[in-house]
């Protein structure tokens, strides 16, 4: 056998990258469909009354959120870990049969669990806790997958050649620990069949917490899922992919460390802002608001650090669509980490709470920041994984503009819809009678809901272009190792 030099092994990274593409398309297709269901309610019955149970908004909504959060995003996190982890630790997966086995096992279990989730949610089996809808057998499977990922992280760290851990590795470790803690505590549940001596279905459960306590734990989890799924690992990605793609060192490594510890300390206290004006103790609500404002500092510390990394190299933004994605991702991060704290201020929340401004905020973060980062990361990894140039630069540029337009449609329509809703709900005459019925608000919001659907459709179109570009890259021009130092090679 030929004695070949040691190389990084991207097998598991590649598998998870394709999982991210597939689950992104599934999750966002459902998202676009349910967006149009809100605008045109007759779509709930599009496949007839008999199938309405499976096609109505409330059945499909958790499938959308879970597919994009735990499918598209988490696959993207795993894919980038199995790529970045090897490179910054300077150790190949091929050097450890054990870690390679763990990585592959993690992938197989992950796909099986995805199937279980899709089937169970379609069937309507849910714990009714937002972003934690899975019943206990699925929860256990998720814990096993997560532990396997932990073995992989610390296993790779254990055999590394680089003594210090690059900042991205710190963020991946924080993702692992943060989600482990949140998931375990929020999913404490009692299987009703076993607790009641054989009543009901074996897979059903009830939360271990009740009432206000349940809400507090749920939103401590819910908000920190945003922290440790949509923020921390995505920062891990940008701290690697932006410097690498641009060939520029991080503007301030010290600032990256400071922001890391700032973010870790502050984020965990913000969950109470989801429960303003509720039965939760007032001090928890105030603490949630105050810490949300403080959170601007570490968030902007990372985002500004990324923008300044391009200092003196701004021409790259014009010339490279991949840099465009990375730059706009960090800009959307700045934007949504300012918008979130503003919404957490009690007086603003009095208008924003329960309105469409909230999903508007969520989507400029998830589409603009999370989505663009996973798209950019996969595009950067593609030439390295396949040793071929990216199939089409033109297609990538077109994708960038179509998706950016889609996001702008999405959040502007939801701003207008949300504030209109909030103001109409609060309006009353001099005797305190409400000025509008709920249906009045629904009628007035129709054009904005339609615009939101169009925005989502544009983003989904871009996602298909992304998938096509990556798949076609496998047959593009082969590249030399020297072409892969920083800027990704791309065909016309």
């Amino acid at each position, binding site marked *: 056998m030929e004695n070949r*030099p*040691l*190389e*990084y092994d991207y097998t598991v990274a590649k598998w998870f990258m394709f999982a991210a593409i597939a689950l992104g398309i599934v999750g966002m297709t459902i998202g676009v469909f349910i967006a149009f269901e809100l605008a045109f309610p007759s779509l709930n019955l599009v496949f007839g009354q008999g199938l309405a149970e499976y096609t109505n908004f409330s059945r499909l909504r958790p499938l959308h959120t879970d597919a994009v959060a735990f499918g598209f995003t988490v696959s993207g996190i795993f894919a980038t870990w199995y790529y970045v982890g090897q*490179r*910054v630790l*300077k*150790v*190949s997966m091929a050097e450890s049969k054990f870690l390679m086995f763990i990585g592959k096992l993690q992938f197989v279990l992950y796909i099986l669990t995805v199937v279980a989730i899709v089937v169970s949610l379609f069937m309507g089996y849910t714990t009714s806790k937002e972003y934690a809808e899975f019943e206990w057998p699925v929860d256990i499977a998720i814990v096993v997958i997560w532990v396997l990922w932990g073995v992989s992280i610390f296993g790779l760290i254990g055999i*590394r*050649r*680089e*003594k*210090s851990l*690059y*900042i*991205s590795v710190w963020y991946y470790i924080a993702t692992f620990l943060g989600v482990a803690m949140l998931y375990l505590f929020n999913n404490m549940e009692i299987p009703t069949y076993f607790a009641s001596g054989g009543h009901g279905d074996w897979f059903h459960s009830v939360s271990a917490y009740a009432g206000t306590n349940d809400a507090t734990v749920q939103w401590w989890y819910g908000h920190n899922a945003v922290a440790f799924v949509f923020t921390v690992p995505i920062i891990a990605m940008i*701290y*690697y992919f932006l*410097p*690498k793609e641009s*060939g520029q*060192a*991080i503007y*301030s*490594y*010290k600032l990256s*460390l*400071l922001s890391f*510890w700032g973010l870790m300390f502050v984020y965990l206290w913000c969950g109470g802002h989801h429960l303003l004006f509720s039965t939760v103790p007032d001090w928890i609500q105030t603490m949630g608001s105050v810490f949300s404002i403080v959170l601007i500092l570490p968030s902007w510390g990372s985002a500004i650090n990324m923008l300044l990394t391009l200092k003196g190299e701004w021409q790259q933004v014009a010339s490279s669509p991949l840099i465009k994605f990375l730059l706009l991702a960090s800009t959307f991060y700045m934007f949504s980490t300012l918008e979130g704290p503003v919404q957490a201020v009690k007086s603003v929340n009095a208008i924003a709470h329960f309105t469409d401004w909230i999903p508007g905020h969520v989507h400029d973060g998830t589409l603009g920041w999370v989505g663009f980062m996973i798209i950019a990361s996969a595009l950067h990894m593609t030439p390295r994984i396949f040793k071929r140039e990216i199939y089409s630069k033109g297609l990538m540029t077109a994708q960038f503009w179509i998706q950016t337009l889609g996001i702008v449609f999405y959040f502007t329509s939801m701003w207008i819809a949300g504030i209109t809703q909030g103001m109409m709900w609060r309006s009353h005459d001099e005797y305190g009678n409400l000025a509008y019925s709920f249906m009045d608000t629904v009628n007035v919001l129709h054009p904005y809901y339609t615009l939101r659907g169009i925005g989502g459709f544009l983003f989904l179109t871009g996602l298909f272009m992304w998938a096509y570009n990556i798949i076609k890259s496998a047959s593009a021009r082969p590249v030399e190792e020297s072409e892969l130092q*920083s800027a990704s090679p791309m065909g016309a």
Partner: protein
Amino acid sequence: MQGYAYVGAMGVLIVVLYAYITHLYTKKKNADGLDYEKYSDMALNDDISDVPVAPVADKSDGKKK
């Protein structure tokens, strides 16, 4: 009581924050001359054949010296 605890916690956190910033900046001037900025090279020079910024093997070698 809650007020005193609040002010005390604020004070401690401010001291910890500025102590960490000072640590990051003064470390460079110490005898071991650690400049945190060099760690950026871990992403830029990340080929498996590239020389690590601080190799693991050097860790024990350095201590022996």
